[in-house]
Structures are given as structure tokens and as C-alpha cells.
């Protein structure tokens, strides 16, 4: 049976199909306008389903029966609405004002962010010991106050056990155990035991053996104290909430009931009777907040008393930590009480001379700790105290503090803390003074490079006065460059690079980089400093967005050479490429940039090996692609092509890059065509052929089969557009011969998926192209189509699948299009078969022969399906085929007409047809029959019965 294709006039069809131009009125209603819901209750309605929500926007007249039930306003929202909005707003504002006053803002760096840093920094490998008493559970059940106090004494003097030779980790675990047992004791209502544990813990703070661990110990133990303070506070607070009305945050002591007050007082009395000074201080400081229950002025009276109490602590390190804790608690509970903060600092200054006293020195000798190391132990505490003081402090106060520090002979330790605690702007404005002071410091004590580092950190955040800038850099670098130890040097230099990049040009940056290289190269010191070097690169990149300037910094590439460990090197390259992609606005052809970046990309590419993760590869490829896309030589297309050739040779291991290159070259070819307005000169024709050749030899090196197929097709189209007919043929032939290799399953994003849908999609696309490909003069008619059909025929299709038949049906579309006098589309300057054959009857006969074969295949398949009882599939396929005939066949042909009627009946035969579709189809036929020359459709419609589904 032959398909008698309907003669079609594409132009008129197109005209008739085109939508009528309707002037657009910008009325109220527009389907795409965002739905604005005016009634609050519609929000609830929307939950019931999408239908009601869409209808609510346009047709509010349709009342949803369910929504009417909910018409009454929600009782909760009603209640909320009645609350006077003015007073509510007013009260919240007042509250906020108060909070501003009573609490520290978010600009205050909290302790929690410091503690981790301290724990990581102050460690030890020495053995530690812990003094503890194994408290027996249930020892605290006695009621009498007397016995309680005796127990407390017992704990102090009584049977204590010393755990010796603990490693640092054991020690930390032990303290964590104590923390846990504190919580357990508390939750099992053994308050006295809990207090004992806390006392025991705070006692550990008076022990300064293994002094280099002391700051960490301080952090761990104050955590426990914080827990304890919170537990006590919450317990007393819970006693105040009798009538289920919780207290407001800013309650007054008058609103506290007697029981709560008594309990609170009891705690304070108990703590006041602790014999030893340090536990007494810490435990009282821990529950400082509870003073709020007793009197309004409690905290403001307690803080100065506790502050002066610290004077009794002899060891300066223990004392300064105690001060830091008091400041910490003070800032939390009453940040407005600044005086005691200042007092703490001044007291510290008064006792400062103790550090160099005999007692401390003897201790250091015993523990074999050097003075510079010992001094750094003070930093966390002093930093914290100064941070508390400097928080929102007036300029005058800071100046005063600085003067006081100066009086103590420019002590480096203090100077460092001042620099790390005070506002960067403040420091930056006085940079020259600070440099002078740093210079005056004595060498023996606190390490000077730390001072310069601190100063550098400040300058990275705030700008010094314009006039001083260069001098600051010179002065600072003079000292930094003299540092002998590479680690000290790089820590300093890392910080100062940011300042240099911020305020100076590439010349200075170049000098700095050169200096770093000079320092880090001997003995391969850079191997120990990769993180710092990496951060230097990062800083340079952040400040130099213009890559032409960046790469003209002579020492930049030599600097990169210091990254010799591959993973670090690749990381750095990635950073550079990311920055380039982010900041490079327009495409470039600057040879400096290209050279440098090719080098960088090459490094990234070369890191790929068999073990590289997929994700990593994808990321690298994306970065390289980003670079390739940014390269443009403008009208110099040949240069561009040779760049792509070079890139191909460099990045052959990354498939996505090759794909990108092929696309780029194709684009280049099309660009050429555009420039030549379709008329290639001899020279451009040769160039275009070179492009096509590039693609043709690159595609086979890809491993993904669909990438190859699509690229063949795509490149073929490009070749065709550029009148390279034989090359296009080659592409299409390659694609055809590749189809049999398509596996049944392919890997998509790590999952195995059947490939048929992809193949179907590709083949349809391919057919559309084949329509316009002119036949090769030496090959037979429809050489490519036949070839493709053979391949499809031989391809091993999935069992129980109709894809092959679907493709055949689609082939019919192609074939009917081929029989038209003028094809639906053309490639400019390429004569397709319509022109070549001019509707030659031999040609048409050939097409008809192919048609016949295909139709036979389809019908055979339909029969087989009928035998196999796969009736649903049969029905679908029959309808699909019917639609094809309807669209493309000339139904005036009796045979075809009969075939279509048969197919119609077949589709309905076993009741698997979708009635709605059938009705719609019939309606369509009837509608078509009203068009001119389509009267035979009316007749057809009469012959198509509709089967009711009963």
C-alpha cells in the first residue's frame, strides 16, 4: 500500500494558521497577572485545592460552599486584631530601646566565638593532674543547714583524690564528666552536690601547674560555671512563676515572692561561707545575675566588690583570667556598668609589675616556660577585657587607655591587646604612633612580629590617613623583612599584603610579592606555609579585578610557582579562574592574560587523573569553559581558530571542554558566514572548511555517544549552512553509522536510564534535517534516508516497545514532506532535492517505494500486537498512524481512505481507546471538512463511528 501524500501549499497553510493579530487591551483582567487576594479568608481556601484558589482571583461571585463555613473570622486572629496596634507597637519599641540599653548588640563579638580559638591555641603535651573528691550519691539528702555546711567543709578539706598523669584529652574528658554530673545532680534535685561540683571545678583554676594549658582550662571550667549560673537562675525564676504568668524580662525585685527570694539569699549565704578565695569568687560571679531577684542595685553593688576581691589573688595569670570572667559575666548581665570594667583593667595595670616579679619567674623556671610564651597566655584574657571596655566606648576613653599603657613602658603585651580589642578605625588613625611604640618595645618580651600582625589586621579593616599610608608600609615592611623565622615572617606578611593591595598599585604589590618569594624559597620554607600563601593570592585577587594588571605584576606567576604541592596548586588555580569568570566583563585577547590563564588552566587540567571525582572534573571543566568563552580575537577568526586548536591539545582530558570547543568552532563558522553575508570568498570558504574539519576530527574523541550524535548533527547543519556539502554528508554518514552503537542503557547523573527516549528525540531531529540534505550525485536517491532506515531496522530494539514503529510513522512525515513541490524550509544557497529533481516522477516513485515498505512494516507490527494480545498498545499505535494519515495523506485516495477507516475501527475495537480523544478527533475532522478542498472529510467523518463505552 502506498501513501498518497497530500499536496500541500506551505505558504497558504502558514498564512491560515497564523494567529490573527489582536490589539492588546490592558484591561483589569489578565491571565498572567499575579493573583492578588484581597480577602484574608481566601488564604484558607487555597489550602483546599488549586481549583478554588485560581477561581478566587477572577470569579469572586462563585461562592465556595466550604469557605462560607469559615466565613466567621478566626477567633485567634480576631483576638489579635483587637489588641490596640498603637500600644503594641509602642511597647515593642520601648522594649527594643531597653534592650539596646540593657543588652549588648550583635556587633559585640561573643565569648562563644573566642572559646574555640583559645582551646585550639593553648594546648599542651604535658601530663596534667586533677584533684577531685568522689562524691557519693545521696550524700546531700540531709536537711539541716548545719550538716550542709559541714559537707561543704568536708569537700574542702576532706578525702580528696588526686588523679595524676592525665593527658590533655583525658583532662578535658574529666572536666566534661564533671559538667555532666553537675547537670545530673541538679536534675535529681541534689543542689548541694551540684554546688560542691562547681566549687571543686573552680578550685582547679587556682592551680597553675602546666601553665601553658591554663587559658584552655579557664575556658573549660568557666563553661561549667556558666551552666551552673544558668541552672540557678532558671530555678529561682521558675519559683516566681506560680500563677502560670511568666515574669517579664525586666521584672522588679518587688514582684518576686518570698520563697524565691529566700532561696536566692540562701545561695548567696552559702557561697559567702566558702573558705577559699578563688572558688568563692568564681561561684559568686557565676550567679551574679541572681542579684536581680533581691534588689535593683544588687548587681551594681556586687560588681565593684567582686572586682576588688580579685586583688587578693596573687598569681597574675589567675587574677587576669578571673577579671576576664567577671567582665564576661558583667557584660552579659549589666553591660551598662562600665566603671567596673575599667576598674578591672586599671587594677590589672597596677599589678602588672608582678609578671616580672620573682614569684612568677621562679615558677617559669620550674616549668621551663619562656617569657615570650608565658606572655601570650595573657592575651585571651586581656583581649577580652579590652574588648568589653572598647565596646561602644567614647574616643576619649580609648585615648586614656592608650596613655596608661604607654606609661607602663610601652609594654608589648598590652599594646597587642589594645590593637586587637580597640576599633580598627581608632588604631588606623594612629598607625604611626603605634609603629613608633612597637619599635620602642623591648625585644626580650612579647614577640614583635605578633604586634605587627595585629596592626596589619587593623589596617586591613580601616584606612589610615592618606598622607601616612606609604610611610606606614615602609616602616612596617622594614621590620617584617628582617624576620628570620619563615613562619613568623609569613604570618606577618600575609596580613600586610591586604593593606598593600588596598592602598597601593601593582608596583608595591610586586615588591611585596618578590620579598615573600625571597623569604620563602630558601630551604623550601613555602611547604610549611601553604595556607598563608594561598590567602595572599586570594587577597591579591580580591583587590585586582583587572587581570591585565594582575598578570603584569611580574612576580605573580613566580609566586604561583611556589605552590608545588599539586592539590594546593589546583586550589589556587581554581580561585584565580573563579575570580576571572566573576570579574572579567568583556572578552579579551590580551596575550599576557591568555598566556597566564592558559598556564593556569593547564595546571588544573593536568591534575585530572583516573581518581579524580566526577564533580571535581565537572567543576574544573566549567572553569575552563568559562575562560574559553571569554577569549575573543574579534575579527581575527584565524587567530581564534588556532587558539581553539591549541586549547584542544591542552585540555583533551576534559570532555565538557572539548564539547565547548566544538560549539565554539561551529559558532565561529557561523560568524564567518554572517560576516560574509552567506557568500563565502575562496579564503573564507577554506577557513570554514578548516572549522568543519576541526569538528570532524574532534567529535570521535568524545566518549558520550549522544554528545557525539548531537554534535555530528549540529556540525553537519553548520557545514550545510556554509555550503560544505560533502563535509555535511560526511557528518551525517558518521551519525548514521554511529546509531547502531547506541547502548540500551546510558548513564545519566550516575543513574542507568533507558536510552530510547533520547534516541527517538535524536532521530526525529535528524529526519527534519535530512529533508533538506541534497542527494549525493554519486550515491542513489535518498541515500541517507535509506541508510538510516536500514540502521533502524537492524537496531536491536527493546522487547515490547513500539518506538521503532513510532519512528517509522515519523519517517512517513518526512517522506510526505519530501514529495512536495517546494519544501517547507531551505538552507540559503543550498539546493535541496525539490530543486534538484524538480518533482521528477522517478524520484517520487522511489519515495513511494520506501513508503510502501514502511507502511507494510507498520501494519505487520499492528497485526503482531493483535496476536500478542497487547491490545492497548495496538489501539494507541493505530490511532497514531491514523493521525499521521489524516495530517499527511491524501484521503481522496480510496485505498488510503479505507485504510484510515480500518485504523479508526482498530483503535476502538477492544475498548482501549480514550473516548475523549476520539470525540475530539472526530470534531477536528468535521471542522476541517468546512475548509475549501476538504469536503471529502465530511464524507470520511460519516464513515467513522464512535463507539460508546458500555
Amino acid at each position, binding site marked *: 500500500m502506498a501513501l498518497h501524500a497530500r499536496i500541500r501549499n506551505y505558504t497558504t497553510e502558514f498564512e491560515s494558521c497564523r494567529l490573527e493579530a489582536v490589539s492588546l487591551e490592558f484591561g483589569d483582567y489578565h491571565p498572567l497577572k499575579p493573583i492578588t487576594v484581597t480577602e484574608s479568608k481566601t488564604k484558607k481556601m487555597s489550602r483546599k485545592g488549586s481549583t478554588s484558589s485560581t477561581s478566587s482571583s477572577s470569579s469572586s461571585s462563585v461562592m465556595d460552599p466550604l469557605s462560607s463555613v469559615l466565613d466567621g473570622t478566626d477567633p485567634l486572629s480576631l483576638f489579635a486584631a483587637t489588641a490596640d496596634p498603637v500600644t503594641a507597637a509602642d511597647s515593642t519599641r520601648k522594649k527594643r530601646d531597653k534592650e539596646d540599653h540593657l543588652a549588648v548588640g550583635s556587633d559585640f563579638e561573643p565569648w562563644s566565638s573566642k572559646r574555640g580559638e583559645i582551646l585550639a591555641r593553648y594546648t599542651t603535651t604535658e601530663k596534667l593532674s586533677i584533684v577531685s573528691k568522689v562524691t557519693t550519691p545521696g550524700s546531700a539528702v540531709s536537711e539541716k*543547714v*548545719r550538716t550542709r*555546711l559541714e559537707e561543704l567543709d568536708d569537700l574542702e578539706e576532706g578525702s580528696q583524690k588526686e588523679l595524676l598523669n592525665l593527658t590533655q584529652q583525658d583532662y578535658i574528658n574529666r572536666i566534661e564528666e564533671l559538667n555532666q554530673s553537675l547537670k545530673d545532680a541538679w536534675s535529681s534535685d541534689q543542689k548541694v552536690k551540684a554546688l560542691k561540683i562547681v566549687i571543686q571545678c573552680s578550685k582547679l583554676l*587556682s592551680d597553675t601547674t602546666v601553665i601553658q594549658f591554663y587559658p584552655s582550662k579557664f575556658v573549660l571550667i568557666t563553661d561549667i560555671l556558666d551552666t551552673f549560673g544558668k541552672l540557678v537562675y532558671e530555678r529561682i525564676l521558675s519559683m516566681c512563676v506560680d500563677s502560670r504568668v511568666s515574669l517579664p524580662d525586666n521584672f522588679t525585685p518587688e514582684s518576686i*515572692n*518570698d*520563697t524565691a*527570694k*529566700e532561696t536566692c*539569699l540562701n545561695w*548567696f*549565704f552559702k557561697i*559567702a*561561707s566558702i*573558705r*577559699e*578565695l*578563688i572558688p*568563692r569568687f568564681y561561684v559568686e560571679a557565676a550567679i551574679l545575675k541572681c542579684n536581680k531577684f533581691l534588689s535593683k542595685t544588687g548587681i551594681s553593688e556586687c560588681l565593684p*566588690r567582686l572586682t*576588688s*576581691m580579685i*586583688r*587578693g*589573688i*596573687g*598569681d597574675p595569670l*589567675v587574677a587576669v583570667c578571673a577579671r576576664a570572667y567577671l567582665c564576661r559575666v558583667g557584660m552579659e548581665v549589666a553591660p551598662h556598668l562600665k566603671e567596673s570594667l575599667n576598674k578591672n583593667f586599671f*587594677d590589672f595595670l*597596677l*599589678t602588672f*609589675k*608582678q609578671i616580672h*616579679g*620573682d*614569684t612568677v619567674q621562679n615558677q617559669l623556671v620550674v616549668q621551663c616556660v619562656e617569657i615570650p610564651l608565658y606572655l601570650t597566655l595573657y592575651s585571651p584574657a586581656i583581649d577580652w577585657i579590652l574588648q568589653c571596655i572598647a565596646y561602644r566606648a567614647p574616643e576619649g576613653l580609648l585615648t586614656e587607655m592608650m596613655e596608661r599603657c604607654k606609661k607602663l613602658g610601652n609594654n608589648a603585651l598590652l599594646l597587642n591587646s589594645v590593637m586587637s580589642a580597640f576599633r580598627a578605625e581608632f588604631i588606623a588613625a594612629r598607625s604611626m604612633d603605634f609603629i613608633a611604640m612597637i619599635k620602642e618595645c623591648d625585644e626580650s618580651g612579647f614577640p614583635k612580629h605578633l604586634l605587627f600582625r595585629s596592626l596589619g589586621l587593623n589596617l586591613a579593616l580601616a584606612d589610615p590617613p592618606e598622607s601616612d599610608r606609604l610611610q606606614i608600609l615602609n616602616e612596617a615592611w622594614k621590620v617584617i623583612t628582617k624576620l628570620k623565622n619563615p613562619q613568623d615572617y609569613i604570618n606577618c606578611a600575609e596580613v600586610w599584603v591586604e593593606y598593600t593591595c588596598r592602598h597601593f598599585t601593582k608596583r608595591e604589590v610586586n615588591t611585596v610579592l618578590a620579598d615573600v618569594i625571597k623569604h620563602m624559597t630558601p630551604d623550601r620554607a613555602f611547604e610549611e606555609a601553604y595556607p598563608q600563601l594561598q590567602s595572599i593570592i586570594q587577597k591579591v585577587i580580591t583587590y585586582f579585578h583587572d587581570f591585565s594588571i594582575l598578570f603584569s605584576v611580574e612576580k605573580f606567576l613566580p609566586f604561583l610557582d611556589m605552590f608545588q604541592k599539586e592539590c594546593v596548586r589546583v586550589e589556587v588555580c581554581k580561585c584565580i579562574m573563579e575570580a576571572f569568570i566573576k570579574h572579567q566583563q568583556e572578552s579579551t585577547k590580551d596575550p599576557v592574560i591568555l598566556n597566564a590563564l592558559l598556564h593556569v588552566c593547564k595546571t588544573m587540567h593536568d591534575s585530572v587523573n583516573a581518581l579524580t571525582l566526577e564533580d571535581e572534573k565537572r567543576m574544573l571543566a566549567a572553569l575552563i569553559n568559562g575562560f574559553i568563552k571569554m577569549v575573543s580575537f574579534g575579527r581575527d577568526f584565524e587567530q581564534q581558530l588556532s587558539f581553539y586548536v591549541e586549547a584542544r591539545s591542552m585540555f583533551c582530558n576534559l570532555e565538557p571542554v572539548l564539547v565547548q570547543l566544538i560549539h565554539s568552532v561551529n559558532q565561529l563558522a557561523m560568524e564567518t558566514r554572517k560576516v560574509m553575508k552567506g557568500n563565502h570568498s575562496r579564503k573564507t570558504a577554506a577557513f570554514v572548511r578548516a572549522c568543519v574539519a576541526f569538528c570532524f576530527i574532534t567529535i570521535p574523541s568524545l566518549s558520550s555517544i549522544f554528545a557525539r550524535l548531537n554534535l555530528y548533527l549540529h556540525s553537519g547543519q553548520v557545514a550545510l549552512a556554509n555550503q560544505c556539502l560533502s563535509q555535511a554528508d560526511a557528518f551525517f554518514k558518521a551519525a548514521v553509522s554511529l546509531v547502531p552503537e547506541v547502548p540500551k542503557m546510558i548513564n545519566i547523573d550516575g543513574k542507568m536510564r533507558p536510552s530510547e527516549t533520547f534516541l527517538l528525540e535524536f532521530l526525529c531531529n535528524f529526519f527534519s534535517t535530512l529533508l533538506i540534505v541534497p542527494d549525493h550525485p554519486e550515491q542513489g536517491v535518498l541515500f541517507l534516508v535509506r541508510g538510516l532506515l536500514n540502521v533502524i531496522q537492524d537496531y536491536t530494539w527493546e522487547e515490547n516497545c513500539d518506538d521503532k514503529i513510532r519512528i517509522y510513522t515519523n519517517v512517513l512525515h518526512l517522506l510526505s514532506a519530501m514529495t512536495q513541490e517546494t519544501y517547507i524550509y531551505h538552507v540559503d544557497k543550498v539546493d535541496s532535492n525539490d530543486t534538484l529533481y524538480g518533482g521528477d516522477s522517478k524520484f517520487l516513485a522511489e519515495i513511494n517505494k520506501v513508503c510502501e515498505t514502511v507502511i507494510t512494516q507498520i501494519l505487520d507490527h499492528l497485526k503482531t500486537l493483535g496476536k500478542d494480545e497487547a491490545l492497548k498498545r495496538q489501539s494507541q499505535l493505530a490511532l497514531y498512524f491514523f493521525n499521521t494519515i489524516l495530517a499527511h495523506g491524501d484521503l481522496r485516495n480510496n485505498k488510503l481512505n479505507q485504510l484510515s477507516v480500518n485504523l479508526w475501527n482498530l483503535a476502538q475495537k477492544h475498548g482501549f481507546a480514550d473516548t475523549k480523544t476520539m470525540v475530539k478527533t472526530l470534531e477536528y475532522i468535521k471542522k476541517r471538512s468546512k475548509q475549501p478542498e476538504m469536503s471529502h472529510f465530511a464524507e470520511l467523518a460519516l464513515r467513522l463511528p464512535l463507539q460508546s463505552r458500555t
Partner: protein
Amino acid sequence: MGTALDIKIKRANKVYHCGEVLSGVVVITSKDTVQHQGISLTMEGAVNLQLSAKSVGMFEAFYNSVKPIQIINSTLEMVKPGKLPSGKTEIPFEFPLLVKGNKVLYETYHGVFVNIQYTLRCDMRRSLLAKDLTKACEFIVHSQPQKGKLMPSPVDFTITPETLQNVKERALLPKFLIRGHLNSTNCIVTQPLMGELVVENAEAAIKSIELQLVRVETCGCAEGYARDATEIQNIQIADGDVCRGLPIPVYMVFPRLFTCPTLETTNFKVGGQDTDDRH
């Protein structure tokens, strides 16, 4: 089991003054109904004196404890014999704190040789088969705040090796000089003791400076008076080698119950104990 007796005094801190009314509730909780022979409430206040072995000798101290002096004793019949329903029963009560004759309500005090204690006892008498139930509860009496302003009497002190007592070989002591002052030598019991102390110089490293609160109790008995000084509490005010020339605060909260205003007398003594000689 089942029946529990408890006394709840209205004031949380249990502190009352002379002339006030002590009020509260007796709480009886039981699963079943309680048969009883009457519930009574007794308020007692007594001074217990104990003779110290040092002043009168071991033997006498053991046998001759002085008879307690009763200050107050009154009993109240709360419920006549009968039945109480199951569940929780609260019976409120009120006791006026008044003394008969010329007796004085002394402040509650727990000392070593002198004890002044006030208790509230609730007794539930029951039939022969069940035990009587008793519950006692201490309450605290404070004397009225002293009338008239207490004149503060500040005192300065200096401690050197020369001022120390009980030292055998004065020459062996390292040299030191400690100055200081107390804000007042007679203090209000509810207020802490305050002052300052400066270590002007000290040859040896200081380990600790402690403040000792000492009481002196005097008991009158047949043989005359017995005076005894005992430690109430010891508070460390300095730990380690403190900075020279820097005033260190002296601060001590008087423990409740263990101190009372000078009546039988308590006295303070500040012991600036240098522990140089301890090592």
C-alpha cells in the same frame, strides 16, 4: 504508712520578731480517713547551755550540763479527737510571740556552748494501734533592730612580726609589714564586715591571708563563769603572693544562725594569719 504531717510556716524565711504573730498551716495528707485522739501544736523556746570541758573539767562537763532555760512554751489544741477526711487537710494556726513576765525573746543562735532555739511541734495522738505522729519545725527569732544609730568605730591595725602572739622564736620569722583598717569594730549582724588590708612588704612569698571569725561564749553556772572562744568561720581573702602595696578588701558575711548580736556576747577578732611560717 499513709498519713503524713507537715507544718508550713507562712513566712518563707521563718524569721519572726517579738510581738509578731506566727502563722501557718498544719498539713495532713492521707489516703484514708484518719482517726485520732486530738491534734495539738506546741511552741517552745529554750536556751541550752553546755559547759566546756576546758573550764570545768571533763567529768562535770559530761554530767553537769546546765538545765535548759525555757523562754517560751505554749500549747494549742488544734483539733478535738475525731476523724479527718482522706486527702489533704490544712489546718491554719496563729501564735502570738509574747513572753510572760520579765523574760526576753533572745535571738536564735546556734553556738557551741550556747544554743538558743525555737521550735514548733505538732502532735497527733492516736489510738493504741497506731503510733502518735509528731512533726517539729524550727523557726527563727530575730530581736528588733537596734534602736538608735550605731556609731561606726573604725580601727586601723598594723601587723609585724613583733605584734604576733604565741610565737616561740621571733627571730626566725621573715620580716613583713601589713597595714589595714576595719570600717567598724562593732557591726550590725546582717551587714558584712568590711575593711582593707595592704601588704606593705614581706620578705617571703605569701601563700594565703585568712580572716577568722571568733565568738566568745560565756556561761554562768554554779562555779562562776565559763568563757570560751571558738572559730565560727575562716575566710581566705588572699591567695598566693599578692601584689605589694595594693589594698586588698576585707569582707565577710556573718553566717546566719551562728552569729547573734552581742548579748551573751560575741566578739570578733581579725587574724591576719601569715602562713609564711607554715612551710
